[in-house]
């Protein structure tokens, strides 16, 4: 049943992609599959949230029927399109085999680590798994959940994407198996690696794409979060896929399907973690920068694209925002009212611990190998390329991500040193795949594989 549940998620995602004629954009079948998985998980969890309003119970039938209906609807539409072709490159069989071996080891280890233990780490149990158990036992979100029960457990304001995805798996399993449910997390890991591989493969050889995929897969912190049932890796997935498709749309604006899927993925990032909302803002700012820099602010088409992008995010976030607003659920850690110049000035002292913690991560090979020093070195060496073509938008995206987290810390109500020690090393995971992708674009002419 676990396999059927996962296939149902892919089926749901695939139907959405078909609805937006994703194939016409030229995406590769493997990219479609990797996108469909995350999209399906996000869409089914949203569907389960909507069941709360409609008072529908969670059963295999109620979850599956809407997607079968969409499938029938999609059968009418013409889903044809010309797939993109990957560049032919020099074959490096030995290097490729070694890199595939390294990636396979990391992937196998991620699955092993995830499935050897049931859910047990602090946030995974206290914040997410408990919610999934409540929903599964009630076969719905109980009517007094938001007004009473949620307050009994930490962070009622955290979005419900992953708890509802876990409930979806339990519903298919027909039992509360908090070991098998962890399967969804290493699959996000595979999703990121696969998307990175194909993104790099579009402009480089197989060995080169495998090299950067291996680099990302072998970062210890990244791999360990593929197994601990935290939300950071799913968030990294949604942000990465949304960013990749956004950059691809910038390269060819006739492929509007990429923009639509990017917006959906950004919305799902917000539905996965509160930090995901920041990535919605980051992507919006990047489109805004694109409208100013590449179209001279004259293109109505780009303005319209921005409106479409924001509308999609708004629609995805609406049910959850509505529930939070009407139930009086607020975040106890971040106070947006603190986001004003006078308060920011008062909080300026936090810059020192923020950068102290950042340098600890920067030079911390235990968690990150030598990624950050190497990235800094590559950027200095390639400073002329930093702002070339789409690269400047990747740079803006990364810079805004770091700046966004600094602002988070500045307006946070939590004691800064405690907050930093608990979060910086996780926040860095969120934009790590985009950083590795950026390095691959910067080095493409220097490292010939």
């Amino acid at each position: 049943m676990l396999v059927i549940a996962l296939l149902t998620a892919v089926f749901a995602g695939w139907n959405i992609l078909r609805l937006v004629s994703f194939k016409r954009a030229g995406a590769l079948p493997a990219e479609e599959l990797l996108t469909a998985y995350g999209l399906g998980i996000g869409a089914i969890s949203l569907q389960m949230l909507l069941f709360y309003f409609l008072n529908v119970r969670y059963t295999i039938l109620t979850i599956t029927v809407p997607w079968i209906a969409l499938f029938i609807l999609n059968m009418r539409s013409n889903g044809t399109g010309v797939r993109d072709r990957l560049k032919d490159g020099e074959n490096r069989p030995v290097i490729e085999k070694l890199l595939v071996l390294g990636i396979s080891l990391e992937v196998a280890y991620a699955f092993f680590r995830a499935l050897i233990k049931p859910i047990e780490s602090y946030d995974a149990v206290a914040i997410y798994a408990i919610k999934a158990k409540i929903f599964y036992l009630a076969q719905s979100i109980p009517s007094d959940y938001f007004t009473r029960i949620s307050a009994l457990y930490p962070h009622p304001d955290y979005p419900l994407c992953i708890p509802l995805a876990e409930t979806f798996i339990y519903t298919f399993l027909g039992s509360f198996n908090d070991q098998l449910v962890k399967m969804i997390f290493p699959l996000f890991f595979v999703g990121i690696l696969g998307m990175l591989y194909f993104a790099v493969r579009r402009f480089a050889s197989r060995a080169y794409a495998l090299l950067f995929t291996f680099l990302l897969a072998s970062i210890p912190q990244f791999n360990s979060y593929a197994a601990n049932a935290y939300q950071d890796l799913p968030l990294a997935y949604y942000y990465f896929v949304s960013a990749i498709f956004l950059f691809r749309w910038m390269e060819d604006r006739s492929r509007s399907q990429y923009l639509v899927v990017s917006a959906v993925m950004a919305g799902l990032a917000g539905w996965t973690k509160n930090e995901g909302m920041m990535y919605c803002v980051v992507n919006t700012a990047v489109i805004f920068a694109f409208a100013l820099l590449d179209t001279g602010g004259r293109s109505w088409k780009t303005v319209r694209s921005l409106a479409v992008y924001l509308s999609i995010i708004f629609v995805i976030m609406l049910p959850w925002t509505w529930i939070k607003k009407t139930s009086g659920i607020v975040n106890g850690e971040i106070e947006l009212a603190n986001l004003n110049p006078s308060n920011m000035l008062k909080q300026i002292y936090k810059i020192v611990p923020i950068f102290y913690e950042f340098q600890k991560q920067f030079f911390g090979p235990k968690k990150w190998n030598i990624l950050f020093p190497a990235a800094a070195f590559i950027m200095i060496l390639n400073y002329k390329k930093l702002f070339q073509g789409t690269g400047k938008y990747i740079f803006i995206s990364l810079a805004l991500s770091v700046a966004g987290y600094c602002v988070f810390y500045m307006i946070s109500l939590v004691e800064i040193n405690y907050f930093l020690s608990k979060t910086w090393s996780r926040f860095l995971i969120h934009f790590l795949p985009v950083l590795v992708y950026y390095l691959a674009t910067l080095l493409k002419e220097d490292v010939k594989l």
Partner: protein
Amino acid sequence: MVYKIFKIAFAVWIALWVMFGVRELFIKGAAKEYGKLFFRSLEGKHSYLTGDKLYELITAANKKMPPNATYKLIGVEKDSIEVRRVAYYLYPHFETDDADFLIIYDSRGDVVYEGYDIVESLDSARCVMKKRGAQ
């Protein structure tokens, strides 16, 4: 030149990758832990991860508590991961101050819990108490 530097950096990367992988598995004891977990049932894994003694107590309490009964956990550090795990395992029972059951993990001999009777005693430190008159 960039390519040469890249090759050196990659060699350092691989060396660190192997070193930290071996460190985690064999020095920090992950391999040993996997060995202990591998042949355990799901229940056995919960027990190992929570601590066999605490898990035995939770299981005993769960058997004694009727539906909708509330509990209070005593002898475990507030907001610790153990408290979170107990709340997770015992749901749909909720923790309250004026609880129907007391789950005592680390009893202090001199503390008397008035109005409660022992319904399950596992050893001198661990027991489950029920409020007099509770269902």
